[in-house]
Every structure is written in structure tokens, then in C-alpha cells.
């Protein structure tokens, strides 16, 4: 076991795509962590979706052994973190396990919204921060300008920032030395009772639930009986190990170290992130403060496209929850879409990732309803309720007021696009709070209703700024809003999956658009179908799918009745995908398409 003074624990933090994972590659390489054959770009991004999208979703920990210039051998525990705002909960947890951070800034881009947000998280976590200017190999790199930005925007001393290229490896050696010199060694008592932090957990098909721990005091070893202080669960440890990044078993982990344990844990409820792990028979006196629980902010329904797959979805969601503690789920029944789940996510990307992971890793075909936020409903009887699903909105006469969550959004944008960005925020009911400049880049701070952001704000922002604007937000507060429920009715019956809460100024246009869209999507039937949009019981838009005019086979070839019957049987098989609403059977695909396009 390494002496505490020879351990350094650090997180690599940055705005999305600024090169954290690539830098991790170089650090692993220079410490001889992987053979040439095992190397590949962003080796820590092991999930299929991470590789495909080129982004990190899940933080990863690596133990490295470094022989420094002073001739001593050091143990580094590196944590590569995701850059996207939706995964900042991953970042916070990683920060809690380390003493310092490498703050990577793309020298060709400069400080972006998540650079700022993550730097603040590191400062809050009392981290020693080493700024790193990356991508200096690029012709567009302006290390000096960016140094100035780091100082001006974040307020960090950037004179000692290291200029590197994670691509070519230039300057990476200096980082390793700087880590030793500038980061504090962890503190801890090997003799004290075990006190370890439960940093993360996930499901491994071979090991079962694997728990990532940071040991603060004492030692954790195979065979030891441990207790999770928060949940009370007691388990015997089957295996202790580290990632190099390959999984390597070790005898024990001492203070200051980060590694994994496997302890035949079956349910995720046993291991809550942030919990304190101690020895069952010799517990520590003081538990750690724990983490602030993650707060889902975006909700939507997830339904199997094939109703027969509900059981499979149920099992898959439970398994996935073991890998991602930050999403919530609750069973839901929809007349339009059948049995499914209402799920809460940290943001839209998170939603998309969970949906895709379910589809790919568990081979499901899913339908997502329009994303929504949590509204607070004030009732005339003096009560208050939290509304997670617009379909559950009480009758308007019982409502005295509605509140919606507002966010504080920070947007960094080159000033040539500032005008369009301001217009977009204004259009989304935003209230400007601040506007500052660093060189030719502006930083605007806006208060915005979250429900305006969950539709397509991020996409719009990217497109009006040609990808140059970056965006970060925090939930701020709840504010009273002129909100209404928009319901879509088919032959007089509401389609639950299509109801939504929105600002009254947008309700009519959205209702009209949805009706028109559904009209195109619902195939003509023997009888005409009425599609209506209603706000608080008042019909504001109406479309009619006229009755089928002609649908008859001209010629029944000879005696081949079988062919005709087979065609009907095929239709019957397709009937499973039909949903009966208001006496009309509507292909589920129509709802799905309406959901996919109802966001414009």
C-alpha cells in the first residue's frame, strides 16, 4: 500500500469536448497503464453510446503508477468526468472523492459555460485547481487570450496554467510533475476505524453490483464485513480492486485510495451514493455528510412500442437504474400508449441517453412522450400538489394558481451572435440578469422558465450561434405563471399522452399545430374522425379526418382467397399497435410521430 504522501487524487473537469478523455489517454499512456495494443482513443469512454457520440457520460476512475523525476513512485487516482451539463451530478461526486482538479480549457475555444460551472463546483469542493490549456497544436489556439479569460471570467490565477496538446502529448509530462507539486496529498489514518465514501455503483454482469469507494480512514479488504451507514445494509466483501484501467484485484485499499468493492449486493437501494461505508464490528463514529441528492428536472413517459414488451421494460429499467442512480421512474398507464413508466431525468440529453441505452442494451423499442417539468398546483381547497404528468392536471375550476420552475441560465457566446441569443431568450419569456464581456465574447445570464428550455432551446441556441454558444443552468426557484393545460381530443376523448402544460401565449399555436399534424398522421377510416385541441375545456382548434372514400380490391384473382385472407391476418397482427381512443382505432405510430414533431 502506498504511503499517503505518495498518493494524488484528481478529477479532470472541463466543458464538453475540450479534451478530458483524450488527456486521460495520454496520462494513462505515459504511466504505462496500457500496452500499445490495448490503447485506443478515449479509452475510458467504454460505453457504446459514448464512443458513438464522442462524449463521456459516466465518470471513470483509473489508478496510475508514476515514477517522478525525483525518483519516487507515486499512485495517481484519475477521474475522467463528463462535460455536459446534464451529467454535472457525476462531476460533483467525482470531485468529492479527490483533492484536486485539472481544469482543461480548449485553447482554441476559451472558457465556456461548463468550464465556469465545473470550476465553481471544484472551488466549492475545496479543490486545488490546475488549469490546463489544451489543443495548443491547433492553428486556432490562442493560449494567451484563454489564459486571460480564465483569470477574468473564473478568477483563477492562470499564469501557471500548463499549455499542452492531449493529441500529440506535448506538455503532458509537465502535468504529471505539477500534480505531485501542486496537489495536496490525501489525509487519513490507516489505524482508525474504516470510513469510506460510496462514490458510485453500477451493475456488472459478472460481479453483480460494483461499488466505487474512496477510503478516508482505515482499510477495506476482502472478507471484511461492512455496513452502509445510511441504508444499514451489511455485506461481506467478495472482492476488492482497482482499475488500471483494466480491472485488477488487490488485497486491500488504504486511506487516500480509490477503488472498487463487490459484496454480493443485489439491490441498488442498498447502496446510495454518498453513503458512508464502515466496518460492521468496528464502525466509525462520524458518518460523512453525504451528497446532495440529484434532482430530476425533466419528466416524460417511456412506453414500449410493442405492448407485449412491458415486462421486458420493467426488468430493463430496474437493471439500468443500477448503473444510473440519477433517474427516477414510476409506473404509468396511458390510454394511448398502454403500460409504461413516467421517468425523471437531469436534462434532455440524459433523457435521450437513458432511452437509447434501454433500446440498445436491452433491445427495446420505446416511445417517449413530450418532456415536461414539475409544476406546483395550488388548489382552491388550500392544498398544493406537484404535477409530474400534465395528464393528471386537476379540473381548472379546482385550481387557484400554477407555479413553474425557473432556471438561471449562463450563456457564453461570441458577440456577433449575441443579438440572436438575446432574441431567443426574450422569446422564451426570459428575464435578463447580467451581461458582461471578456474580449469579444459575451456572457449573458438569464432567468428562464424551464419548460421553455426543455423543448428545443438547446438546439435553437446551437443553430443560431452556429454551434459557438455554450449553455449552463441551475434550477433557481418556482414562479407563478399564466400556464394552461392543452388537451388533444380524438372524437371527443382526450389523448392523455398528448396533453401538456404550457404558457397561455403559446397554447393556441401549439394546439393548432398538433391538430394539423395528427390530421396528416391518422389514416382515413370508414367514419370521419374529429381532432380537437382544448384549453381548459374550451375548444380552440379543430380538424377532421374525412372518411375513407375508396378502399376495395378491384380483382380477387381466381380462387386465391387465401391471399386476401393472409392480408387481413397481417392487418390483425398490426392491430396490436392500434390504440382505441374515442371509438376510433388509431395506429400508435400516429401518436409517436405527433410526439416527435409536436415540439415545433
Amino acid at each position, binding site marked *: 500500500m502506498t504511503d499517503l504522501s505518495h498518493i494524488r487524487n484528481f478529477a479532470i473537469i472541463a466543458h464538453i469536448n475540450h479534451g478530458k478523455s483524450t488527456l486521460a489517454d495520454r496520462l494513462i499512456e505515459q504511466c504505462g497503464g496500457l500496452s500499445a495494443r490495448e490503447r485506443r482513443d478515449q479509452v475510458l469512454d467504454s460505453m457504446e453510446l459514448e464512443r458513438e457520440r464522442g462524449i463521456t457520460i459516466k465518470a471513470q476512475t483509473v489508478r496510475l503508477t508514476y515514477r517522478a523525476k525525483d525518483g519516487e513512485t507515486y499512485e495517481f487516482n484519475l477521474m475522467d468526468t463528463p462535460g455536459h451539463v446534464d451529467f454535472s451530478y457525476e462531476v460533483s461526486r467525482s470531485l468529492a472523492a479527490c483533492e484536486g482538479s485539472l481544469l482543461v480549457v480548449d485553447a482554441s475555444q476559451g472558457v465556456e459555460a461548463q468550464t465556469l460551472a465545473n470550476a465553481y463546483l471544484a472551488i466549492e469542493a475545496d479543490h486545488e485547481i490546475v488549469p490546463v490549456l489544451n489543443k495548443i497544436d491547433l492553428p486556432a489556439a490562442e493560449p494567451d487570450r484563454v489564459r486571460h479569460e480564465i483569470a477574468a471570467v473564473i478568477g483563477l490565477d492562470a499564469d501557471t496554467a500548463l499549455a499542452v496538446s492531449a493529441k500529440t502529448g506535448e506538455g503532458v509530462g509537465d502535468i504529471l510533475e505539477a500534480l505531485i507539486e501542486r496537489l495536496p496529498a490525501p489525509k487519513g489514518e490507516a489505524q482508525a476505524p474504516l470510513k469510506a465514501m460510496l462514490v458510485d455503483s453500477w451493475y456488472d454482469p459478472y460481479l453483480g453490483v460494483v461499488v466505487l469507494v474512496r477510503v478516508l480512514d482505515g482499510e477495506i479488504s476482502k472478507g471484511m464485513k461492512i455496513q452502509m451507514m445510511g441504508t444499514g445494509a451489511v455485506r461481506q466483501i467478495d472482492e476488492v480492486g482497482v482499475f488500471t484501467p483494466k480491472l485488477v484485484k488487490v488485497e486491500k485499499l488504504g486511506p487516500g485510495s480509490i477503488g472498487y468493492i463487490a459484496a454480493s449486493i443485489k439491490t441498488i437501494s442498498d447502496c446510495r451514493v454518498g453513503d458512508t461505508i464502515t466496518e460492521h464490528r468496528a464502525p466509525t463514529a462520524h458518518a460523512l455528510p453525504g451528497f446532495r441528492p440529484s434532482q430530476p428536472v425533466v419528466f416524460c413517459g417511456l412506453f414500449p412500442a410493442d405492448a407485449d414488451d412491458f415486462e421486458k421494460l420493467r426488468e430493463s429499467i430496474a437493471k439500468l437504474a443500477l448503473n444510473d442512480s440519477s433517474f427516477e421512474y414510476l409506473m404509468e398507464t396511458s390510454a394511448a400508449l398502454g403500460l409504461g413508466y413516467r421517468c425523471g431525468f437531469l436534462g434532455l440529453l440524459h433523457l435521450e441517453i437513458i432511452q437509447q441505452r434501454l433500446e440498445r442494451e436491452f433491445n427495446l423499442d420505446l416511445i417517449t412522450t413530450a418532456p415536461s417539468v414539475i409544476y406546483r398546483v395550488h388548489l382552491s381547497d388550500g392544498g398544493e400538489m406537484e404535477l409530474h404528468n400534465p395528464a393528471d392536471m386537476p379540473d381548472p375550476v379546482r385550481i387557484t394558481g400554477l407555479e413553474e420552475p425557473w432556471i438561471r441560465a449562463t450563456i457564453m457566446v461570441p458577440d456577433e451572435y449575441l443579438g440572436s441569443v438575446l432574441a431567443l431568450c426574450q422569446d422564451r419569456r426570459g428575464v435578463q440578469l447580467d451581461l458582461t464581456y471578456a474580449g469579444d465574447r459575451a456572457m449573458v445570464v438569464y432567468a428562464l422558465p424551464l419548460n421553455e428550455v426543455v423543448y428545443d432551446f438547446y438546439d435553437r441556441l446551437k443553430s443560431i450561434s452556429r454551434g459557438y454558444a455554450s449553455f449552463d443552468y441551475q434550477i433557481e426557484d418556482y414562479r407563478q405563471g399564466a400556464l394552461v393545460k392543452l388537451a388533444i381530443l380524438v372524437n371527443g376523448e382526450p389523448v392523455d399522452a398528448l396533453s401538456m402544460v404550457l404558457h397561455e401565449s403559446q397554447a393556441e399555436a401549439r394546439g393548432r399545430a398538433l391538430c394539423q399534424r395528427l390530421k396528416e398522421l391518422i*389514416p*382515413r*377510416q*370508414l*367514419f370521419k*374522425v374529429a381532432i380537437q385541441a382544448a384549453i381548459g375545456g374550451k375548444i380552440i382548434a379543430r380538424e377532421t379526418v374525412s372518411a*375513407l*372514400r*375508396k*378502399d*376495395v*380490391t*378491384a*380483382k*380477387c*384473382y*381466381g*380462387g*386465391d*382467397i*387465401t391471399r*386476401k*385472407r393472409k392480408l*387481413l*391476418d397481417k*392487418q*390483425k397482427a398490426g*392491430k396490436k399497435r*392500434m390504440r*382505441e381512443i374515442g*371509438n*376510433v*382505432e*388509431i*395506429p400508435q405510430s400516429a401518436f409517436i410521430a405527433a410526439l416527435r414533431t409536436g415540439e415545433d
Partner: protein
Amino acid sequence: MAAPEALTTNLPAPGPAPEAQARPLALYVHWPFCASKCPYCDFNSHVADSIDQGAWLRAYLEEIDAWAPALAGRRLTSIFFGGGTPSLMDPDTAAAVIARARRIWPAAGDDALEITLEANPNSTEAARFKAFRAAGINRLSLGIQALDEPALAFLGRTHSAAEALAALTRAKAHFPRVNADMIYARPGQTIAAWQEELKRLMGEGLGHLSLYQLTIERGTPFFSAHRRGDFTLPSDDDQAWLYLATGEVLARAGLSAYEVSNYARAGEECRHNLTYWRYGDFLGIGPGAHGRLILREFALATENYRAPADWLKAVGECGRGVKAELPLTAMVRAQEMVIMGLRLEVGISALDFRAVTGGDFADYLDRAAMARLTQGGYLSRERGRLKATSEGRLRLDAVIASLLGTAHGG
């Protein structure tokens, strides 16, 4: 709707009617060759370099003989030579098939046996009409398809309108009954132009017409051309207008739409096709032919090998070219009878339905759908018959899907 198995067990065992062996029989003979292949056609037809007429005759006779014992005692009501282009058959072949069938299944009388031959209106074939008449053919069905030259070219036909009309004149001279097949609702076809075409045809004084709206069939050259966007069909609405206009012109000329696409003067209806629509028994001979037979012990659907060579080989080896022979449950019989029977203007008689299925309409069809469709003016029940109204027949596929519980609603 419950699974067919579940339903059938709750019903009075219908079984074949006791008088099954006395059920009339129709005979279909498939000739799978054409001089050239039309781009819209997905019938079992092939262009062959040479055809061994003798081998085909032997095979037809062999297959007929093979069925003789199972169908002993049946009364033959019609023979239909379909294709392909059966007018390319040697008239002697047709004569021999007719003779053999008549010997095995005597007809009630000469008059009672309708014998149809499908023919293309090319002059070479018209030259053989006399011989076909002598072979025993008493009804000719001529595939005129269009009387408009560009349309004939579009359809890939090898005859002109004039040639077709000349063939028609000749046919009328030789055969007591003549039908013409037409294809309409063609790309860009207007109601006025179609009425014009129809009027010319009506001038020929035919007692029967088969008027089919152009259907794009999977696997044909038209299918890919249509998907590529080389041409577009009239919209559903326009097809409906064309259909209604057709019915009017024909009705004025005294031909009623006794089936979705078939029009006849009273008494001129095609008896053979009526057997299909009424779900009567028919035996299919030749490649790809289908049969429906209610035998003493059970009801049977037969399907022959489709490729000419496969069929010939199978007949050579075991006397019959049957690829699949499946028993028909009462539920399937009910479904098929509805699929076919509602195409007829007169619909389905409840008595016939009970004879075939052992039950009533309500035992097999979605009752809620029946009520809704009746209420909505698509179905009617009168004097013991279930029939589709003219509005219903215009949307028959959807109506049937609804009745059989496979609906898109309605």
C-alpha cells in the same frame, strides 16, 4: 375477437353439409403462358420459348383423373380456362380437357355448362376463335384493357384498339356469350375520357363487362416505376368518382354491377365467378391454381405448385400438382365467405352461410362493428341476407377488416 379455435369449439359442429357430394362443382384450368408479359400483371404467367402442348394436355388430364374419386357424383356447372393467355392453348387441348371433365362429372345439360376461355385480342389469336368454339368453349373473355392507343402502350399491350375491336367482332360472331376486360383509373385518366371509351365499348352490345381499376401489384415493373414516381395513380377520391361514373354509364345501358368490378345484363352473369363469390366448390387444375372443396369428411383448401415446371413434375410423380392442402376451420370458412360474398351486390344469404359455417353471421363477425357499419350506411340486412351497400362496396376492404375484427376502426 377470440381466437378462431376457441370460437369454433363453442359452435354447433357445422361439418360439411350432409349433401356435400351433391354440391355443384366448378372447374378452373390454369394456363400459365403469355406471348409477352404486361408490366402491371402479377398473375401466374410466363413467357416461354416453346411449349410442349402434348405434355400439358397429359398433365391436365392426369390431374383431373386424380381428383375424380374424391369428387365422384358431382355435377359440373362451369369450366374456366384462365391464365396467362389460355387462347395460346391448342384448341384440341381445350377440347380434350372439356371432354374428360364432362365424362367424369356430367353436367345437368348442355345449356347448364358454362365454358369460358380468356383470350387476348391479337389477330393471330382471333384467327383461332372458330376452332375454340368447336372445342366446346361457349363464353369468351377478351382482354381489351383500353381503347386508347397511348393507354394501350402504357399498359404494354401488343395490340391496337382497332385490332382489339376487330377481335371483339369476330368473338361475337363465334361465341354465344362474350365479355370484355378493361383496366381503368389509369394515370391521368379523366372521367370524360373514360366515359368516351366506355361508350365505344358499349356500342358493341356486350352483355358482360369486367372493369378493373388499375392495381399496383408488388413485384411487377409497375410497382417499382410507381414507387420511383414515374407515374401516379388518380387519388382515392378520383378513383371513387371514376367508379361511380362507371356504374352510372353501365346502369343506363342496362348492365348492373352485380359484383364490385363486374357488370352484366340480367342472366348474363359469369356463373363460374359467381361460384367463387358464393363460396361454392371449385376445383383448381394447373400451376398455381387454388381450390375450395367441401368434402364429406371435411372442408379443404388446395394450392398447386406455382412454377409451371414444378407443377408438371409433381403431376408426373403423384398425379396431382398440389403443394398444400389445408383443412378449413369453420371460422376460416366464415371469413372467406364474407370476403367473397360481400363483393356481390346481393350479398350473402344467411341460409347459405349456415350451410357452410354451421352458424349465423353474428357467431363469426364482430357484432359491434356490424352494428356500427349498419348504422353508418355501409351494411344492410334484409330478407335474410347480409350485404354491403354501394357505399360499403366502395370501401369493402375496410368494411371486411372491421367485420373480421382487423379494423382500422369504423
